[in-house]
């Protein structure tokens, strides 16, 4: 357990985690919820890693895509009499924007991909991550499942590298996710 707080509001909880981690990055507050979740999860994993200039690929997946933000955008254009779509909301109506936020923060110019599945697909992740490492496409891979829809959210991130503490296998990924 790194941090916990009894707070039903996702937005407030993410802000508390941001403050707990001692991050100074004002653009965080402009992100949508999915990006904030991906950003904070990546911070926890990469904070002790010298990521700048490293070739760290990012492969994420979820099942809600950017639906949480898509709804906000839809609500702003439903009424033709009050049609004021927010550009700041619209730019987050793609799930891979969170990857961009992580890349900007850690100065990564690496391969990345965001995939939408019904549930965490260990087989797909294992093969993609293995392929990136084995073919020297990246030094390491930040990967996992980042999902949010209204007050329900889940993040499962890990870093795959040549010298990890746990062997990179499909079975281990499945076990880590279920635990």
């Amino acid at each position, binding site marked *: 357990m790194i941090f916990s707080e009894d707070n039903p509001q996702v937005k407030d909880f993410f*802000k508390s985690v941001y403050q707990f981690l001692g991050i100074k990055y*004002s653009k965080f*507050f*402009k992100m949508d919820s999915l990006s904030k979740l991906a950003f904070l999860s990546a911070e926890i994993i990469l904070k002790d890693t010298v990521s700048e200039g490293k070739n760290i690929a990012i492969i994420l997946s979820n099942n809600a895509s950017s639906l949480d933000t898509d709804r906000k955008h839809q609500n702003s254009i439903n009424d033709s009499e009050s049609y*004021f*779509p*927010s*550009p*700041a909301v619209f*730019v987050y109506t793609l799930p891979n924007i969170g990857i961009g936020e992580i890349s900007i923060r850690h100065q990564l110019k690496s391969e990345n991909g965001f995939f939408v599945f019904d549930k965490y697909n260990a087989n797909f992740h294992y093969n993609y991550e293995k392929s990136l490492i084995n073919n020297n496409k990246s030094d390491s891979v930040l990967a996992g499942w980042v999902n949010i829809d209204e007050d329900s959210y889940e993040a499962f991130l890990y870093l795959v590298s040549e010298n990890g503490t746990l062997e990179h296998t499909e079975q281990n990924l499945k076990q880590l996710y279920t635990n």
Partner: protein
Amino acid sequence: MDDLKLELKNNIIELLNLEDVNVDEIKDDDSLFGDGLGLDSIDALELIVMLDKDYGIRLSDPKEGKRIFESIEIMAAYISEHRTK
């Protein structure tokens, strides 16, 4: 005019999620972009929508925003002169 400037400062902080900025830290003649508040291009678009939504001012040329959004002082003067609501 002072009420409008205060209203603009509050709206900008809330609209643009400037969580670490207080109203009294924004001076009337501070640059909103660049070295001032550090707003970016998406913020500029958001301010254009705010002009339309809150004050009934529709900019035909988004490039106009560069001049209008230079500072709170200039924004307030422009809004006072052109507002339709």
